[in-house]
């Protein structure tokens, strides 16, 4: 069996923060690493993540903030990356799906696997980020809280998303109890 990667070429090396002194450059942090962007600062974050950094987990779905496939955390809050120009990101902290796991999977990611949420999977990065954002604000969400997540799923995984968010809330508590037990 031939095992060839779908990506024939390696992504370019991530730009370093060497131009951080440049007044025009936008300095930001993505998944905990510093970046400096000095291109067209009207370009939405989505295309910086995808085209430049090759962080392709953040998806393009509509370009108007309607579908949520591009949802990322900006300073800890869920935002649509397709609507956020680079110039709005100076000194801000971006977390994408690739950076959500912190050593171990985020409880939402873990729950998504347990409940087997993804069908095609394309919208799920955005759904997971939106769910992580919800759980941070509302640790025990009810169905109405969950129903306010506006990300679209064309495959109709919503019922399993609901179950997985509730499961993620449990996992968070289990982990906290475990941590508490250790100390």
């Amino acid at each position, binding site marked *: 069996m031939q095992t060839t990667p779908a990506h024939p070429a390696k992504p370019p090396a991530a730009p370093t923060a060497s131009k951080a002194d440049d007044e025009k450059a936008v300095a930001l942090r993505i998944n905990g690493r510093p970046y400096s962007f000095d291109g067209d600062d009207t370009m939405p974050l989505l295309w910086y993540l995808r085209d430049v950094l090759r962080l392709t987990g953040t998806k393009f779905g509509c370009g108007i903030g309607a579908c949520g496939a591009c949802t990322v955390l900006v300073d800890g809050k869920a935002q649509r990356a397709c609507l956020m120009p680079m110039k709005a990101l100076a000194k801000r902290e971006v977390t994408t799906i690739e950076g959500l796991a912190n050593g171990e999977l985020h409880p939402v990611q873990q729950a998504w696997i347990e409940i*087997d949420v993804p*069908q095609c999977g394309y919208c799920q990065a955005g759904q997971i980020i939106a769910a992580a954002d919800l759980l941070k604000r509302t640790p025990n969400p009810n169905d109405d809280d969950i129903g306010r997540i506006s990300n679209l*799923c064309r495959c109709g995984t919503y019922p399993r998303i609901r179950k997985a968010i509730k499961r993620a809330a449990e996992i968070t508590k289990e982990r906290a109890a475990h941590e508490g037990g250790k100390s």
Partner: protein
Amino acid sequence: MSKDKTIANPSRRRFLVVGAAASGALIVGWRAASAQATLPYLGARIEPASLGAFVRIEKTGEAIIGARGCEIGQGVKTSLPMLIAEELDVDWNRVRVEQLPYGYIDTEKGPGLKYGDQGAGGSTSIPTAWKDLRQAGAVARWLLLVAASAKLNLPAGQLHTESGNVIAPDGTKLSYGELVDAASKLDPPTEPRALKKPEEFKVVGKPTPTVDAREIVTGQTQYGIDAYLAEALVAVVARSPWIDGEIASLDDAEARKVSGVKDVVRIAGPKPGDVFDGVLVNGVAVLATSTWAALKGREKLKIEWKPGPFADESTEALRKQADELLRPANADKSIVVRRDGDVDKARKTARKTIEARYSVPFLAHATMEPPAALIHVEKDKVLLVASLQDPDGASEVINAVTGVPRAKIEIRMTRAGGGFGRRLKNDYIAEAALIAKQTDKPVKLLWTRDDDLRHDFYRPFCVFQMAASLDRKNEISAWSARCAATPRNHRDKGMKDRPLWNGTLAPDDFPAGLVPNFDLSLLPLTSGQPRGWWRAPVSNATAFAVQSFIDEVAVALKQDPLALRLKLLGEPRELPYKGHGGPVFDTGRMAAVLNAAAERISWKRKLDKDRGLGIAGHFTFGGYAAHALEVSAIDGNVVVHRSVCAIDVGHVVNPLGLEAQVIGGTIDGLSTALNLGITLKDGKVQQSNFGDYPLLRMGQAPVDVEVVIVDSGKEPSGAGEMALPSALPALTNAIYAAAQVRIRELPIGDQLRKIL
């Protein structure tokens, strides 16, 4: 390297081949039967890469199983390898699944496919694999048994396998890894091996999570749109808003000034009226070093279009066309799809004839991942990385556009961000190839959402005039459905030899064969819009008309809608069914899913005020589904309080995957019934994004979809499409039960809010 050995698989005209990889691994795969004459066979050395390898067993005992299908969210990357693992008798936990690329092979008799059918359409992946893929696992297992037999000096008949080991009567265990060396030197069996009986299954039938789940939730999965190549230029295209529209003038000076824009090229659509087998419409492509630059460049293009022959088309005009054609005076324009007995005569002697007209709009597929492709066209070879449903078709269009022989076209299918039938058309692949031909760089084509909604192959627009005659005993003596539709069979090379109604209507669908006088006919509407396969083709429109109308008949007869359906289905028996999903329609299986759905929702119970129950059932591509919904429609706001779907798709390979497909199909159906429709004005599609093509959001969807699996144990039918069609009429029937308003036109939109 070992000898290359083959056995005939008479039913499929392919040969299983056995070999060894450089690592010493055992490989079992296929080769097209017709390739036998041209390829070195017995006694020749083989390259592992040239094998259609489904199974590779490493010396470590790890089993790597190749997934041949196009994974579009229907779960085949998990379910097809499960079939192989079952026959191989390995622990699923120790299996690694790898996506196989498209397996084109030149043979003496023409194009061959070394992995068999890799497309995703018509819910055929599982039924096809059920017949052919299990054999690959069974042969590998047989070889390991024979190798063990030699090693232990015991007849193979005394040995058995379990979880990746061959076990002797005295308990001696040999792991598959230990046997790989010897097994790969063996001659393959001369006849297909016997397959396991369902009661022996250990993998098949067990709830099995998506193999890619971890990669998906961590953002590592590569979709077609995620493929990049160094130096590739991003292309976006400004397309003619009109079918057969032409470029009157193009001024690209401003576009070329955009930083990052490298080139602007024209792409030619088909000649007016010609088949849509390549690029859909004329367009202008902007090539740039980044997506953002390409999008900005496209905005700066100044194009004047010559609108062409369909510039006056509108949904309103289509409706008028349908109304005119459906007048009795135009009965002679009908194309008969099926006719039993004499409907007119029965009507004359009927106690009463009930009529109703239903309509369904054009629908776009709106896959979450819009059409996209990465392609590198060189003088003598092509590489394509894309999300596909029909890699065979992709190979054909690339060959047609570039002239590069198909054997030199490498196609890597990625997991696809939805399919729903959109990717059965390879227009976007043709477009990418045509652009790439005009540059020496690889091209990464991207469609935006408005490109996608405005340039799709739509589900046909249909208006159904239904009539049912009731005799003096209140039996349905005649049933007729006249359908004015933009036929699916339109400018499609692959359909030109088929009847015009093919792809729009199905002659043997319910209640054909169950009423003595029956008429089904097509009245073709004229439209320029391209039409395609949309999840559960034909059924996604006809089920709404038929299952709504049977409800109206039940109301007229003051009968229970479930009881009337069951009465019509009658005794369990098989009726001939000629279309896809045949050869039979089993009335008993249909009744069983209707009963199962009714039972789960407690059909006979007394409901709260303002609540209503609706039921509907439909047979799609060999699978049987019934929906029962409980809804309210207070002030016109439809709320689905409970949704149940009972499904019989024969033997269940992965219950977890089946449940997902049923939940998804149900929600897709509800979403479509409630809000979705593509409309035309001045020849142009009016919708452009999710604002005006509003897929259902989580807060609007039912909290749960209760899935009742009815396991008939029959041959599996596949499951990607069956759970959609009956969801739509179950919803509108439930709305009628709740609010006494009959929805006859989809989408429901704000119809109820205007009335209630």
